[in-house]
């Protein structure tokens, strides 16, 4: 593999709030020109990590450099190289879109001409030219997000940080944002984002780190992570009357040559298999023999959700299995 230069280097990073560790011992590198995601559930430590990288928080231990500059010692230098798109709609409702950008132009110490030139270009890029002189309170959620992104791009950053860029957006706006992010990569901008959407990490990112409980659980490209699981997944759902037979079924399958790993879920089993054409008959045969009625059987290539579960021991959103249990 071709060695790419390192844009961000994080080493043994830790942050403690009032004695409670938000992140511990985080080490990873982000390469120049890639789209990198920190994937994890709420409270996993993604935002803490991002805030340290953009110099808004000081780490309690370890260190991080952005393009060679230390985020604590050379904070001012780091700030000159990055753009940031915050998670909240960090918009001043009383200012127009153009006024937001003009303000930031001055905060990045651009000359008036340079500022106006970039603003015209960015408004075009995010398709906000028509609304640029309306106060932001008249903007829809998607438009505010676009303005957010334009603000993040104004300094012409080498690295753009996006905190949950599509949180709460409708499908169209989401796809638009993904599209912008891909355009940025084409321009050579390194993009670092946090997300708790598996599909976003899967489809948009070159590489990702799965963060859970303040630690990195897995790191790699979506493809690497999925193939790293080894084997395809057979999902077996049994009838609610037969839930007691799930355990015996699992023990019966354990040790069969075509089966690599079995995990129990509330409604049945997830079975990682070597070759589905051998495994499927074996599973059905075992279920029959144990009088365990199979309600539904599904076979698929490993998905990022499987990767997440395999590394963290739980689904990224706990409410889904709970809802299934009720039903």
């Amino acid at each position, binding site marked *: 593999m071709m060695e790419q230069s390192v844009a961000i280097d994080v080493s043994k990073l830790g942050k403690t709030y009032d004695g409670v560790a938000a992140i511990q011992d985080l080490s990873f590198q982000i390469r120049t020109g890639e789209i990198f995601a920190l994937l994890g559930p709420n409270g996993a430590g993604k935002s803490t990590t991002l*805030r340290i990288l*953009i*110099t*808004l928080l000081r780490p309690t231990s370890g260190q991080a450099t952005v393009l060679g500059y230390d985020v604590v010692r050379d904070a*001012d230098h780091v*700030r*000159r190289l*990055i753009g*940031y798109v*915050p*998670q*909240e*709609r*960090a*918009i*001043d409702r*009383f*200012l127009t879109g153009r*006024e937001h950008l*003009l*303000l*930031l132009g*001055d*905060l*990045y*110490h651009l000359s008036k001409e340079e500022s106006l030139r970039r603003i015209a270009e960015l408004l075009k890029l995010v398709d906000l030219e028509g609304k640029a002189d309306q*106060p932001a309170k008249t903007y829809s959620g998607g438009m505010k997000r676009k303005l957010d992104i334009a*603000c993040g791009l104004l*300094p012409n950053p080498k690295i753009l940080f996006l905190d949950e860029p599509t949180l709460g957006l409708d499908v169209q706006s989401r796809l638009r944002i993904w599209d912008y992010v891909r355009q940025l990569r084409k321009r050579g901008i390194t993009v670092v984002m946090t997300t708790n959407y598996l599909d976003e990490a899967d489809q948009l990112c070159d590489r990702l780190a799965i963060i859970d409980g303040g630690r990195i659980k897995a790191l790699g490209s979506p493809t690497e992570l999925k193939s790293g699981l080894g084997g395809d997944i057979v999902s077996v759902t049994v009838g609610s009357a037969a839930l007691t037979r799930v355990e015996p079924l699992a023990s019966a399958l354990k040790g069969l040559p075509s089966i690599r790993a079995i995990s129990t879920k509330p409604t049945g089993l997830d079975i990682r298999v070597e070759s589905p054409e051998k495994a499927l008959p074996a599973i059905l045969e075992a279920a029959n023999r144990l009088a365990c009625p199979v309600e539904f059987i599904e076979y698929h290539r490993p998905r990022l959700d499987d990767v997440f579960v395999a590394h963290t021991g739980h689904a990224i959103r706990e409410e889904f299995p709970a809802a299934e249990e009720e039903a």
Partner: protein
Amino acid sequence: MNEYRQEIAALTMRWVRRLSREKFSMLFTLIQPMLFWLIFFGNLFQRAADVQVVQAPNYISFLTAGVVVMTVLNNGLAGGVDLLFDKENGFLERLMSTPIHRTSVILSRFLFVTTVTSLQVLVILGVAFLFGVTPATGFFGVAVILLIGMLFGVGLTAISMAMAFSVKSHGDFFSVLGFLSLPMIFLSSALVPLSAMPRFMAMLAVLNPMTWAIDAIRPLILTGWAEALRPLGIVLLIMVAFDALCLYGSAKAFRRAIG
């Protein structure tokens, strides 16, 4: 230095823009103190107040100094509100992620609050003039009034911003604000001279920096330089000490929020 000036100018301009967009709230913050206190309160107590006690030709001329300082108080204590909202919606984070000097946001706020307050003080003196109150020390006296107002305002604005950065919710902020503002007014010489207060209130009022500001401004309006110059030195000293104390107390909250 040039960059610093560019940042502060842009940030201050933002506060001005916000104020000009909130026309309704601007009307109320600018008009309310003088309308309510000076015109209504001043005229209402015209006959109830004893001119012997207030040592002034009429109650309105006595009250003018109090209303000037009350305006400084209210504006100062509310000076952190916009930063509170910036903190809550993430705008502050956006500002702090840019390569600006860490003090620029706070300085722009001081600059804005001080300017707006000074303009308001001028309007109040103008309205008082319409009711026949002419500052005895003339234009230069008005300049000194503005100076005292600015010095008192800086400390208050510092407290307000520190509070905005420290509170958990904006409900807390407004409760503290409501709790502070009226007692500060009643436990000062704004409405009644110290000599006419119940003893325990007068004792507390002496500890209130607001009383010192008012008692320095009042002779500038009522009597003239001879009376006014005597307390001026000590009052300016007290104001500077008050500012130093407030800034020192706020420093930790500032560092945590923007450091």
